[in-house]
């Protein structure tokens, strides 16, 4: 696998200049996620109203893969229903675990598709899925 199949321009862009890396003043819920072995730590903040994720943002530290993955996720779920957001999270995790490869099925992941080759880097799978697991946890209690 070539390096730039993983370290794509999309990933570089989102990790260098994340759009959603900031505090969310009107957050209705927040959730911490961590990878102690890497030292990755993020906090996701969500504004959920009427079953819709109105806004999403994050703070914290981590590698390019985890930072980009988090930023892309925040972008993707804005405006989605809680249900949809959780479905997307699980779809993304399946993609990174290499369980889901059907292009059509994956299409709705949009920019997050740029991370699909992390599936071939076992050491980095954890980095890519951190945000999405955290999101899923955060939304468990929302409805």
């Amino acid at each position: 696998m070539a390096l730039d199949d993983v370290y794509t321009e999309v990933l570089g862009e989102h990790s260098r200049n994340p759009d959603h890396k900031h505090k969310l003043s009107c957050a209705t819920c927040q959730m911490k996620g961590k990878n102690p072995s890497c030292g990755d730590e993020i906090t996701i903040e969500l504004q959920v109203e009427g079953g819709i994720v109105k806004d999403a943002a994050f703070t914290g530290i981590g590698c390019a893969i985890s930072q980009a993955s988090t930023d892309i996720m925040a972008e993707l779920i804005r405006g989605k229903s809680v249900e949809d957001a959780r479905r997307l999270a699980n779809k993304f995790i399946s993609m990174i675990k290499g369980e889901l490869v059907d292009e059509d099925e994956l299409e709705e992941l949009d920019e997050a598709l740029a991370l699909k080759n992390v599936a071939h880097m076992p050491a980095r799978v954890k980095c890519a899925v951190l945000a999405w697991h955290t999101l899923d946890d955060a939304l468990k209690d929302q409805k």
Partner: protein
Amino acid sequence: MADAQEFLKDFPLLNHNINGRKVAYLDNGATTQKPEQMIQAICGYYGGCNANPHRGAYALSIKATDIYEGARKRTAEFIKAKRPQEIIFTKNATEALNLVAYSYGLHNVHAGDEIVISISEHHSNCVPWQMVAKAKGATLKYIYLEKDGNLSAEDIETKITERTKIVAVTQVSNVLGLKNDVKAIVKKAHSVGAICVVDGSQSVAHMAVDVSDLDCDFFAFSGHKMLSPMGIGVLYGKYELLDAMEPFLRGGDMIEYVEEQDATWAEVPAKFEAGTQNVGGAAGLVAAIDYLEKIGFDRIEAIEADLLNYALPKLRELPFIELYGCDSTQDNKTGIIAFNVKDVHPHDVASILDNDGVAVRAGHHCAQPLHRYLGQNATCRASFYLYNTREDIDRWIESLKKVRGVLGYGA
């Protein structure tokens, strides 16, 4: 240096192609590769001498006993212990340090006492002492660092006091690669009536160690970081201390008599070696010691120094590289280099280097307190050994130059 090329041929893994190329293995601080001679010693043991030692009156069992007790003697000579009985085999350095914490620490540290360790300790020489301090109501104190990463001389002087019962320090930091003057620390510890535990995990494969000269009370290390198999470690302890200590693991072979409600203990070292021991591992350890002593630590130190002196100026030329523990003006830097690439997380660095077949480690290296102290979440670490070559360094540096580009940063 032509030396490394000479040894390289002995290490089958380093001559393999992995993903189409040989690996530049620069993670020797985590574990070393194994020479064919050592691998053959394991095969030879299992193929020709395997039996449960100490337990049989038949020829094979005696052979196995001889191999095992011979390994003890050889290890004692290797680190210059006064008696073979002062060598306890464990599964790794971590078990060795836990043995001291449980069997010495929990029985000799009391409320109000102090345990002193350094901020650069590996978790294995830190978390066991947290346990002892908490269990006994003692205080755990830290020796912090000078600006250059060396242990603060002032802290050594002031933190080790009449209340100190145990001082535990590493001989070489596994992150900063700086050699500590443990002999002086042992002396200081003894001057206040404390004992001194030395973590030799990062030293014993890289320099001649003389525990009798250091006068340390305990000394721990792992075989796998010195060309030996995994699953064998060593605790050296002064005989009188070991003799007075309670056992740790209990079961077969560490007892004298077992009644229904009571048991008495075998003599040192058997007292601390419960259950069937790793005789194959001990056979491998002997082969590794033979291998190292044949080369000699002068040569090994020279090889590592050459690699260090070759790498450091090249790294310093790269403006985007931050180095840790590389400023010491003392002559105590070993072949371990911790670094970061500006703006890039260490895990991305390691993945990118891996793509070029260069193996370095990224993370906290089991030294979170040190990383917090350095203000770094994580670092990369390259660590050398006798089979590394200048070519390995070149490959590492070349790959490093690409890192920022891959992530879309300018150089």
